[in-house]
Structures are given as structure tokens and as C-alpha cells.
């Protein structure tokens, strides 16, 4: 008799188990999600979270997590269904498998938007997650760190909340664990915390994260290296002090080897780290230059394509912007050639804009620098970028500014001559200005200027009287005998012919 009774219960439990397992299975495929939502899966899963059988609870949480992971509507539905408090409560109580699943749900909800992350924080998830970080099981720690990272990544307030919950020291401990995936996720969470403000980065630094992160630079695992470099660059980007602390961890010759990593993202993050350090002060930039960093970055810019090379390009620009000495260092490391190649090769506007900016920073210091840039045949390319019809506004302003910076220092006339023919008036002004500065003092250049047709071109320019351009043209004309100037002025042949007409032959 009792067996019959028990059989009913057993059957009920079996079918519940089967239901949650199937739903969890179905929820892992995106095409099923809508159907599941329409069938009201949320309201069915919720009571199953409180089931007496732990397996069913875990699987229900897993299914919920997969649903919430799919899009923010479903995540919103999870929040509205008051499921979070239950999860948070059980996060503290249940076994490790359940904790993992619950942390997964929290993570899936928090990842979509700051509001959803805030609602996760509001139901007290942070404390529970921080307690999970103290768990023995690495899987639990991993999913808790992951959830914390997703919460912290949205904005500074949420990151501050995570820090206030005391997660940072535990995350730093997690980095030191032997499990690679845990290290990875903890480093990523630290990076997410650091990225918002100098204070947050300072808290992470105070917890001693830098030394442990710096140790993992030479780890063979590429994904871990990505996160490590990302975290270090997020720390270094805020202030000089933090950047110096990162440098003091003696990362310098070691990180350069990672620029040769087969993984694209590792390379990109390393370049970002070097950029973030170099941008602060001339001293830091000098340190990188002396370590041979510029040569490594130049090689890296040459080897990579598109977005990956962007941080390298910007790093060269930042280094060159600090002082003429550093700009010279970039030039002798053959940086200009690579930047010119990037400028002409890259189809995307923002990378071209970055290259143009970097070239402008290199060429703006002295005539020597400007010559080095001009010799690489950069000026016509910059002009082309400036004049292109489909160029973005940013690219236009950047290339214009770069052109202006370089032209104002450039006295290398052969490079300037092509610009005389196809530059618009606002650029032409600078080009002619440079000629007017050089020609009065250089007889060979005067001669060359005439033979190459520059003088003729100058005469053809229609400048408003009284403008700077007209003044420059006047200065140039004053360097030459009047006949030559007249000879090259437009309409001179007509004038000659007229004189022929008016000439009374002496018979």
C-alpha cells in the first residue's frame, strides 16, 4: 500500500526533473527562447527554484540563467519576477553546485544594463557573492568573480559598490589560485573595477594586485594574458603615480615579448598598456624608449592589421608628442615609415585619423623632424585624407592639423612642391609661407623653384590683396628679377603679342 503511495511521489519528482532538464537544454539554443518565453517558462521555473530536490533547484537556476543571458527583456523578467532575492538567499545557504548556478543567473542578469546590474546590487547580491569568493571550490569562486566583474563594468557607482563590499582583496587572492580560468576571470573583474576612476584603481593597487598581475605576464595561456594586460592598462591609464607603480613592477623588457604573441588580443592589450604608460610623462616615455619599446611597437604596427594596430599607432604619437628628443627616437626607430604605411593601407577612417595625428606629433618639433616626415612621402597622403569626399570629420580635422603642424616646420622644398599644385587655399597658405621663408636665403633653391615650375604656379594663384598669402607671394616675387616674374605671369604672351601689334616697324 505504502509503495503505491510512494510511487506517486517518485513519479512526480521524475517528471519535475525531466521538465527542468529539458527546459535548460532548450534554453541553450537561441531559436527556442521566444517560444519558451511565450509558454510562460518564467513563472514555472520560479517555484522550482524552491524545490526540495537540490538537482532540480540547480537545473532550474541554470535554465533561468540561460534565459536571462539571452536578452535584456528576459533579464528584466527575472528581476520583475522577484527571483533575485531567492537566489541571493540561497547563494549563502546551498551547496556549491547551486551557488554556481545562482551566480550564473546573477551574472546573466547584470550583464545587460546598468539598471539591471543595479537591481542585482539592490537585492543584496554583492555580499553573498563576496562570501562565495571565500568558498573553497574554484568553480564557485569563478562564477562569483564573473558576476562581480559584470556588475562592476557598467559604471563607477556600481564598481564602487563592488569595492565597498570588500571584493577586491578576495579577487586579488583569486588571481593567485592555480586554476587558470579563475585567474582569468578575477583579472578581468579587477580590470572592470579599475577602469572607471583613479580612486577605484588605487584601491585595487592598494590590495597588491600589481605584483601578482605582473607575475603572470609570461604565462603561456593567451586568454589569461589578455585579461592581465587589460587590467594593468586600466590601472595605468588614470594617473602618473599609478602608471609609475605599474612600471615599478619591472614589467618592461618582458611585456615587449608579448608583442610577438600569436594572439591578436594579447598584442592589442600589450600595446594599449604601453600606450597608457607612455602618455603620462616624458620620463615614462623615455623609459619605454630606452627599453627598446618603440622599435618593438613599430614592428608590431607593421605586422598587424586594422584595429589591432591602433593602440600602437597612438603610442607612437604620444611618445613623439612629449619632446623633440623622443620624436627623434621614434624617427630613428623607423616609426614614420610604418605610420605612413598604416595611413595609406588602412581603409578605416579612425585608424587613418590616428596615424595622421601621430605623424603630426612627430613632425611638429623642428625642421629636421618635419623633413623626416616629409621624405616618407606623407604630405600628399595627408592632403588626400583631408580632401577625400567621404572622409569623416575627425579624420579631416586631424589630417588638417597634422599638415599644418608639419608644414609650419618643413623647409624641405622638394617635398613641398607637389602640394603647390593640389592644395586648397587654407593649406596652400602654409606651403607658400614656407617657400617665402626659404627662397630669399638660398640661391640654388630659387633656381630649382623656377625650373620645376613652382614660380609659374605661384603666379597663377589668385590671392586676395592684403591677405597673408598675397604677402608671401610678394616676398617670393621679390626674390626674382622682374622679367622672370613677368615671364611666368599668366597672360604674358598676350601682352607680348599686343606689343607686336602696336609695334611700328621701322621701314
Amino acid at each position, binding site marked *: 500500500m505504502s509503495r503505491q503511495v510512494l510511487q506517486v511521489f517518485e513519479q512526480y519528482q521524475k517528471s519535475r526533473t525531466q521538465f527542468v532538464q529539458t527546459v535548460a537544454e532548450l534554453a541553450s539554443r537561441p531559436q527556442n527562447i521566444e517560444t519558451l518565453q511565450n509558454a510562460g517558462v518564467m513563472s514555472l521555473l520560479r517555484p522550482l527554484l524552491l524545490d526540495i530536490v537540490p538537482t532540480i533547484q540547480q537545473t532550474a537556476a541554470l535554465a533561468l540563467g540561460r534565459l536571462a543571458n539571452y536578452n535584456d527583456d528576459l533579464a528584466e523578467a527575472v528581476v520583475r519576477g522577484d527571483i533575485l532575492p531567492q537566489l541571493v538567499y540561497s547563494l549563502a545557504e546551498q551547496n556549491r553546485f547551486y551557488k554556481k548556478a545562482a551566480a550564473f543567473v546573477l551574472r546573466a542578469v547584470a550583464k545587460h544594463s546598468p539598471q539591471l546590474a543595479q537591481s542585482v546590487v539592490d537585492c543584496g547580491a554583492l555580499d553573498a557573492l563576496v562570501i562565495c569568493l571565500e568558498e573553497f571550490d574554484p568553480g564557485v569562486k569563478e562564477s562569483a568573480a564573473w558576476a562581480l566583474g559584470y556588475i562592476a563594468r557598467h559604471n563607477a557607482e556600481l564598481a564602487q559598490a563592488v569595492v565597498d563590499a570588500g571584493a577586491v582583496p578576495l579577487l586579488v587572492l583569486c588571481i593567485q589560485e592555480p586554476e587558470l580560468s579563475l585567474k582569468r576571470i578575477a583579472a578581468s573583474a579587477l580590470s572592470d573595477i579599475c577602469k572607471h576612476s583613479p580612486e577605484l584603481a588605487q584601491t585595487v593597487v592598494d590590495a597588491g594586485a600589481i605584483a601578482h598581475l605582473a607575475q603572470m605576464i609570461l604565462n603561456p595561456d593567451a586568454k589569461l594574458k589578455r585579461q592581465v594586460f587589460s587590467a594593468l592598462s586600466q590601472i595605468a591609464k588614470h594617473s602618473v603615480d599609478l602608471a609609475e607603480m605599474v612600471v615599478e613592477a619591472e614589467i618592461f623588457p618582458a611585456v*615587449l*615579448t608579448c*608583442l*610577438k*604573441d*600569436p594572439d591578436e588580443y594579447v598584442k592589442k592589450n600589450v600595446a594599449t598598456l604601453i600606450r597608457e604608460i607612455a602618455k603620462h610623462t616624458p620620463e615614462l616615455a623615455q623609459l619605454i*624608449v*630606452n*627599453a*627598446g619599446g*618603440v*622599435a*618593438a611597437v613599430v*614592428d608590431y604596427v607593421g605586422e598587424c592589421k586594422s584595429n589591432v594596430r591602433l593602440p600602437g599607432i597612438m603610442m607612437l604619437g604620444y611618445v613623439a608628442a612629449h619632446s623633440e*628628443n623622443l620624436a*627623434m*627616437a621614434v624617427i*630613428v*626607430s623607423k616609426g614614420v615609415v610604418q605610420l605612413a604605411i598604416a595611413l595609406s593601407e588602412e581603409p578605416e577612417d579612425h585608424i587613418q585619423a590616428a596615424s595622421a595625428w601621430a605623424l603630426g606629433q612627430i613632425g611638429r618639433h623642428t625642421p629636421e623632424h618635419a623633413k623626416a616626415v616629409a621624405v616618407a612621402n606623407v604630405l600628399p597622403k595627408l592632403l588626400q585624407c583631408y580632401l577625400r569626399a567621404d572622409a569623416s570629420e575627425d579624420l579631416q580635422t586631424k589630417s588638417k592639423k597634422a599638415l599644418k603642424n608639419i608644414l609650419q616646420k618643413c623647409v624641405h622644398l622638394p617635398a613641398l612642391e607637389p602640394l603647390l599644385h593640389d592644395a586648397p587655399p587654407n593649406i596652400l597658405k602654409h606651403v607658400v609661407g614656407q617657400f617665402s621663408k626659404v627662397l630669399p636665403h638660398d640661391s640654388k633653391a630659387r633656381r630649382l623653384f623656377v625650373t620645376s615650375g613652382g614660380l609659374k604656379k605661384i603666379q597663377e594663384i589668385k590671392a586676395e590683396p592684403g591677405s597673408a598669402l598675397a604677402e608671401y607671394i610678394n616676398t617670393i616675387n621679390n626674390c626674382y628679377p622682374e622679367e622672370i616674374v613677368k615671364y611666368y605671369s599668366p597672360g604674358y604672351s598676350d601682352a607680348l603679342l599686343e606689343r607686336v601689334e602696336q609695334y611700328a616697324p621701322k621701314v
Partner: protein
Amino acid sequence: MAAMVRLTRQIEDVIEDSYNRKNEAEAQREKEYIAAVTVQAWFQGSRTRAYIKHLNDCAVSIQRRWRGFLGRKFYRVLVKNSVQKMWRGYYVRKYVFNYYSRKRYLEALQVKNEIIRSELEEFAEQQAVIRKRVQQQREKSRHEYEARRSHHLLSTHVIPSIYNSPFLPFPLEHEYTLRSVKPLAHPKKRLAKSEFDPACASYNEKLPTHLPPLPQKPQGPFREPEVVQKQRYKPFQPSLRVSTDFYSLEKAREEMKAEEWVTRLNDAVFQPFTRRTVPYEPLLHTTSGYGHLPYGTKFFRFEEQEKHITEKPFKMLVPPIPIFDKLNDTYSQGQV
């Protein structure tokens, strides 16, 4: 007339007087002359000296000016040529711009760049070689595993396999691969019972339901079968010596030490001996006139031999007493 008479009377006197005067003058003349010459000589001498001094002064002042002028001229040239040049050069090189140091720096930088480039190149090559090797290793082990799995396709003496077609002049390569590997072994069954452990409390075996058969039929009277069964498969009774670790005392001490070390309350921070400034405390024994006991050299422990009950030393390990162990473990009822 009277006056005339008076005068004529006086003529003699006058003449006399003037003669005397003349004589006197004659007598004094030379002296006076010498005096005059002396005075004039002095006066003229002083005047001339004053004049010469004046001329000298003039000359000195002219010469001073002139020499000053020349000296300054020379000095200016000197300064311009060497000192100023050197100072300016030094100043500019130190604070403004030093062409040669820049040049040297840039050359050194190029060398450094070359070094870094070659090092990175080398590193990248090494990494590529390692990756390739790992890849090859994986590939090889995969092939080998596949070959082991399909080892049944190996041809035998009698039946040629598909890789060893009799119509072909020689077998395919796969055949050789199959020959070179061993077939996959069956998964080994793990031993259910654990290895012999002297410290275990009982044999972890199921009790047999029946006792093993005996060679010949024994004669009675017998004890109850349950009793016999119980005794035969009685739990293992290791002695205390066997069941505990030989080093358990030391281990326990270490544990206690570690525990104390963790929970100690000590405010004195440990410092290396180089920093520690503890005043030297002389030993009481060496400073007092009485000396110390020869403890540790002559005798080791205060003993009262007469109170000992035996000559033999105290034993910490006692061998088990066989009779106690046998008690109730044999079929006999107590008599040994």
C-alpha cells in the same frame, strides 16, 4: 755856521765809520755769498725737483691709462677667444642642447632597437617552433590513437586486410602503422579492495556465508557455528604500537608548536640580529665566584640510586604479552 762846524768836526768819524763798515762788509762778503748760494741752491733744487715730480706724475698717469688700455684690450681678446667661448659652449651643451650627446644617444638607441628587434624575432621563432612541436605531437598521438582503435583491421597470415590487398605489390602505409602500434587494451578493472593496511580495524571484505570445506571430516564436539564464524572473522586487533604512528608523539608536538606559533601573542617584532640591540647579559655562573655544576659533563640527571627498585632502566616500549593476546582467541577455554 755852527752846523757846518759840527759837521766838519764829524767828518773824521763818518769816514772812520764808513771805512769800518766797508771793512766789515768785506770781511762778511764771502760768508754771505756762500750763504746766498746755499739758499738759492736749495730753492732752485726744490723747485726743479717739484717740476720733475710733476712731469713724472704726468707720465705715470699717461702710462697708466695707456697700459690699462692695452691690458684691457689684450684681456678682452683673451676672454673672447677662450674663456667666454668655453663657458658658452659648456653652458649650451649642458643646459640647452648637446648635439654630440644627442647623436650618441640616437646611435645607441638604434643599436638597442636592433638588439630588441633581433631578440623579439628570436623569441617569436622559438615560440613558433614550440607551438609547431606541440601541434605535431598532438597530431601524432591522435593518429596513433586512431590506429590503435582500428587495430583489428591488421591483416593476419591467412587473411589479408583492406590495407594489405593481395593485388597490390606492397601493403599500404596504414598497414605498417597498424603493425607498429599495440591494440587498445581493455580498461583495467580497478581492485575493489584496498591494499593491506596494518592499521585498519577490520578486513574490508564481505563475510562469506559458508566456511571453507575441511579436508577430512572432523570429530565433535563442536562449538556453535556462529561462535566459530565470529572468531574466525573477528575484527583485526592491532596493538596500540601498530595502530598508532611511530612518530605520533613528535607529530603531535610539531602540531602543538605550529598551533602556538599561530596563536602566539608577542609584541616584540622579530628583527635580524644586525638590528637588535640587546645589552649583553653575562652568565651568572661565569661571573660568580662559585662556578657552575658540572651538569651535562659529569652527570646528567640528579639520581638517587638507592631508591631504585631495579638496576634495569625504565622501558618505554613494552612487548605485547602473548598470553593476553591469545586469551579468548583460541578454541581453548582459558588454559594455555
